[in-house]
């Protein structure tokens, strides 16, 4: 508990390790490869942002991690460890009892609209404790009250019903519910995209404080580059079902390596710069039948023959600048293959 008091503390060992996570959906047109062999890890106290445009598979990734699988599932595989626990090996029942809410909590997109309309907000926030930990009501409500204050909700709101709260208040309540059982990892899927600018900033403030005070790890899934920088220690950029670059936030927002990362950063309008944002020409490929080579090749200004032929591996990037293999910087691009890049970089 000592370390959690130090703000922004990130420990050395990974809390969550994901290896080769795959989730394909069955459709009439064939299998949609929404998540296609994704590997990453998150350290204790670290916030990883999974950034990507709509349809890149980032929400499916959250569902695959939490085992919220759709009926038209075609394929789900991959190994996931949470600390020492191989959670991908657990039965569904054990996963639900031992991992969901208590160790990993998920705040889904627009989940503020999923609160039960006929149950008081305070009771709902206490529910994970009563259901999963079998806490007596009184103790659970006391703990819920603590979390209520932590997320910036007045205590008398515990006795209100969801319709009596504004959108921002409801989103705070959902966040309180996710935090109430003190999970080690909180996955947030577009937690603020439906909210106004000021509400958004206030909720990001709450997340930063919780991260600094309690050392909770976060995975923030979003398409919004500017908002992602409000929490990120690291950024993993997803494109067409795959991660294309994973690196520190400083690197990603400063000098990313993958051509898609660079173009994406240039498409973001900036408040204090006169330079016009630029669109990325073209469209992402269909996930029914993605290209055999690099999935970004068709839109890439730096492509060369090899890009269309075969996919690049997810290799250490950064070249000679940082001890390449030691760093956690990974790029999926032929320009950065150790034996390929030199002449083209």
């Amino acid at each position, binding site marked *: 508990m000592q370390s959690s008091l130090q703000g922004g503390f990130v420990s050395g060992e990974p809390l969550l390790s994901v290896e080769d996570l795959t989730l394909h959906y069955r459709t009439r047109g064939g299998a949609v490869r929404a998540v296609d062999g994704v590997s990453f890890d998150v350290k204790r106290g670290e916030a990883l942002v999974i950034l990507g445009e709509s349809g890149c598979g980032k929400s499916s990734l959250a569902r695959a991690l939490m085992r919220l699988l759709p009926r038209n599932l075609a394929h789900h595989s991959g190994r996931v460890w949470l600390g020492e626990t191989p959670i991908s090996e657990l039965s569904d029942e054990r996963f639900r009892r031992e991992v969901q809410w208590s160790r990993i909590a998920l705040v889904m997109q627009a989940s503020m609209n999923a609160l039960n309309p006929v149950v008081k907000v305070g009771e709902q926030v206490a529910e994970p404790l009563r259901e999963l930990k079998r806490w007596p009501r009184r103790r659970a409500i006391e703990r819920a009250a603590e979390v209520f204050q932590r997320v910036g909700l007045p205590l008398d709101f515990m006795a209100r019903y969801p319709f009596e709260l504004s959108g921002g208040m409801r989103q705070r309540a959902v966040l309180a519910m996710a935090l109430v059982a003190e999970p080690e990892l909180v996955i947030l899927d577009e937690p603020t995209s439906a909210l106004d600018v000021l509400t958004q900033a206030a909720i990001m403030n709450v997340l930063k404080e919780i991260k600094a005070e309690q050392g909770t790890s976060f995975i923030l899934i979003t398409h919004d580059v*500017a908002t992602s920088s409000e929490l990120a*220690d690291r950024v993993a950029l997803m494109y067409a079902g795959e991660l294309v670059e994973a690196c520190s936030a400083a690197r990603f927002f*400063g000098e990313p390596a993958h051509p898609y990362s660079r173009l994406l950063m240039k498409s973001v309008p900036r*408040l204090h710069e006169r330079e016009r*944002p630029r*669109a990325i020409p073209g*469209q992402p490929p269909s996930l029914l039948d993605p290209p055999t080579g690099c999935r970004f090749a068709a839109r890439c200004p730096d492509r060369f023959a090899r890009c269309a032929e075969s996919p690049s591996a997810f290799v250490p990037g950064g070249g000679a600048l940082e001890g390449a293999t030691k760093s956690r910087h990974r790029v999926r691009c032929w320009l950065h293959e150790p034996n390929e890049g030199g002449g083209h970089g």
Partner: protein
Amino acid sequence: MAETPLVEAQGLHTWFELRQWGFLRVGAVRAVDDVSFTLARGEAVAFVGESGCGKSTLVRTLLGLHRPTLGEVRFEGVSLAGLKSAALKAYRARVGYVQQDPFGALPPFLDVRRILAEPLKVHGVSDRAERERRIRAALAEVRLTPVEEYLGKFPHMLSGGQQQRVVIARALILEPALVIADEPVSMLDASVRVEILELLQGIQRRRGLTLAFVTHDLTTVRHYAERIFVLYAGKVVESAPVNDLLDAPQHPYTRALLAALSDPDAANATRLREVPGGEPPSLIDPPAGCRFHPRCPSAMPGLCDREVPPDFTPRPGHRAACWLHDPGAEDPNHSIIIDGRQASGRGGPVHDVSQ
């Protein structure tokens, strides 16, 4: 003599009456409350505000879908209030509307050709060949080419960006003088957003039409609008040319909005942003005086909570409805607040979490 502005809104109020048991008047939602502005021909402006500030009601009032409770909208010098239904229909042909959610705005069972033919039919273009010619021209203008590939497609077969292009083509097909775009890109990805905004701007400049954006996103407006109106709780609190407003905001609400926004930067993660407490007020029973005063860091008790601030002009062309800019007042804080860092809107993050 000065040219007549394309649109003049004068003292516009759009209130929705609240009734109990169907007849007892118990109050009103003051969604638009005393808003005045003029839009020149060929100008691109943005109305910026958070949800519930009345911006959609303002749009619907401009489109002639709501009758204002008080005040009037004049289009090319003619008041909308006096228009009979035939004249109102003719007015609607002069105003294009680009909706927020392109998929929701397009009828799912019509193909692109029929979607674009609809407004032409309604407005009396009965010649089939003429309709076809204009449909093709509109698709080419929004760069859905080769046109043949798109004519027979249904909305669900198009990407979000392509759907929004069809919506824009539909808004343009009657050659309007004014296009109102209500959050035209909020449902789209970053790179597609830029494409659509560039497209709208290109068309606006080529055709010399007036474009009114409604948005909550201040970061995109700099390049696509010339003037900005900031709305809060049913009122315009500040208006100015875009660079003046973004670089030297004069109203505390605008400053708060700008301070809450970030440019992507890894340092953001270790700083808290300054956010005014509370939430926008109810439009049924808004606060007396300035509607922002309960949340305003510079509120002056006795003045801001009592008197509604009129529009002051702190700089040429820059209007702010805020008592801080009252030239008659000898307020010692006056100069501190309007110069330097605070006024630049870059105030942004102040506290450091990691320390």
